[in-house]
């Protein structure tokens, strides 16, 4: 039905924005080049990945092998643990950034000395190369000579092997990720807090509300758009995360800090292109399964308000 209409008919059919003439002054060929790039370098590889994930794919040939790659991915603990780690990584980084971001936002919108300096210094790591940050912290967290553990030793505490303990490595990297990324979350929360009208707080104060009550009943509810943004942004970033992990541990020790993105790279390096692409499809499905429902939920809540 719709497909039989030409674009100009569609335009005359919409009364909201009348056009002066039949030929639009906003030509569709403005879309042509970006569309070409999108289709060739993004859409085609994405669709092709569904086919290639079902093949044994080397430099020279592709053989269709059905779901074998996925069977392998989910049965080998070394590969499957990447999926669990990705999930843990994304949820923990996202959650911590929300909590710390709100706290820092409250701190940096209140009247304190050195506010401008503090905002700048917290935000700057966002702009620094992830590889640079990763290598720096790898040295700072060195179990024997690193600044962190020698400082702890000076206080009489024996620091753990942050990146060498299999139970700890993933969480140390998560900590560094938060260190690097909390600035952007804080900034978004500050933007949200500044937009809340002061009258609400004045009215609440006349009614005798405490600071905590105002935070829970005014600040938090009105920060919902900012919170949504931070959650979605950091989840998307966390699920894809690769650079920091690769710079700090390469997924080690063993496979204890491997995520899907590093599994994809390792299989690609080993020449298992089909398996690597299956990893890509798993990541695609994981991202869609987490982000799309959240986006729909947040949109509905936004409308309900």
């Amino acid at each position, binding site marked *: 039905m719709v497909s039989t209409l030409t*674009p100009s008919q569609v335009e005359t059919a*919409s009364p909201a*924005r009348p056009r002066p003439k039949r030929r639009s002054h*906003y*030509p*569709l060929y*403005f*879309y042509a*080049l*970006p*569309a070409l*790039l*999108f289709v*060739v*370098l*993004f*859409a*085609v*590889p*994405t669709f*092709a*990945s569904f086919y*290639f994930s079902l093949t044994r794919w080397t430099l020279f040939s592709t053989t269709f092998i059905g779901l074998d790659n996925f069977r392998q991915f989910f049965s080998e603990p070394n590969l499957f643990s990447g999926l669990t780690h990705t999930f843990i990584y994304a949820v923990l980084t996202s959650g911590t950034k929300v909590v710390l971001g709100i706290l820092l936002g409250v*701190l940096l919108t*209140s*009247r*304190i000395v*050195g506010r401008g300096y*503090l905002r*700048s*210094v*917290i935000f*700057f790591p966002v*702009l*620094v*190369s992830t*590889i*640079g940050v990763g*290598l*720096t912290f790898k*040295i700072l967290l*060195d179990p024997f000579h690193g600044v962190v553990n020698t400082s702890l030793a000076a206080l009489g505490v024996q620091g753990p092997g942050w990146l060498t303990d299999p139970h700890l490595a993933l969480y140390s990297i998560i900590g560094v990720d938060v*260190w690097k990324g909390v600035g*952007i979350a804080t900034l*978004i929360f500050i933007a949200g807090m500044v937009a809340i009208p002061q009258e609400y707080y004045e009215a609440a104060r006349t009614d005798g509300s405490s600071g905590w009550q105002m935070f829970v009943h005014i600040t938090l509810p009105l920060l919902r758009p900012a919170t949504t*943004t931070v959650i*979605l942004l950091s989840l998307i970033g966390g*699920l*894809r995360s690769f*650079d920091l992990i690769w*710079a700090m541990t390469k997924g080690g020790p063993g496979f204890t800090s491997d995520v899907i*993105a590093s599994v994809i790279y390792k299989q*690609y390096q080993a020449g298992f*292109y089909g398996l*690597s*692409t299956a990893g*890509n499809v798993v*990541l*695609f499905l994981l*991202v869609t399964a987490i982000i799309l429902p959240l986006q729909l939920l947040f949109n509905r809540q936004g409308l309900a308000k």
Partner: protein
Amino acid sequence: MRRERRRAWVVGVVAILASVVVFLVPFLFILLTASKTVQDSADLGFTLPKQWVLFQNIRTVLRTNDAVVLRAFINSTTLTVVSVAIMVVLAAMAGYVLDRRRSRWNTVANLFVLAGLIVPPAVVPTIWVLQSLGLFKTLPGLILIEATFGLSFCILLFRSFVSSIPRELDEAAIVDGASPLRLFFSVILPLLRPVVITVIVVQAVNVFNSFQNPLYFLPGNAGVTVQLTLYNFQSQTLNQWNLLFTDILLITIPPLVMYLIFNRQIVAGMTAGAVKG
């Protein structure tokens, strides 16, 4: 009132001290280690250098391995400038039509933008496409990749900015007989200046810092970028920590300069794009 001011001081000073430990010490550590001699840097300590040799270190780093770091800086600069230029022009045109025109193609365009923001690129199939185009392991190939992956974010920024430009301007130009191209390039584009600057700064930092894309799509020594050399540097210099940290320092300088000059635009771009995304 006086109590409030004292509180402002106490909380502020505590926060500043904490920020020094948490945020400044790592950067100071980079600077101090980069200024040390090899032996001096071997114990990884947070101490003042016995001898300040930062400039010698910089010279050594730039000369190592047939000046690979220098070549990497040239490559990364080319990559950043060209890909950001492509992003700005293409995203401005797309964002403009997306806001101004009502067309059923808009649904498709919006879907693409959303997918570009969310979907992680499929690596090996992208290499396969690049290879069949003869663009794999070439700088132009990587430029197009960076431009494509950055387009979504830029289109969102441009679309929301264009919607704040009154349509009366378009209509006046149309009455004067301006062609669509002229309308866009001489009337609209100059008005987009603030958002163009934001897009340039934010994406320049992104592309300059990009590691995964060069790793996959531009491997090999010929077209190496700064992030790759930094990564390879640790194995080549074998525990010469002073040189590794000199390299880290060199790579941190461009974003720092950008931040000092364009502080406001960066902050605006990151929060505005975030709110839309």
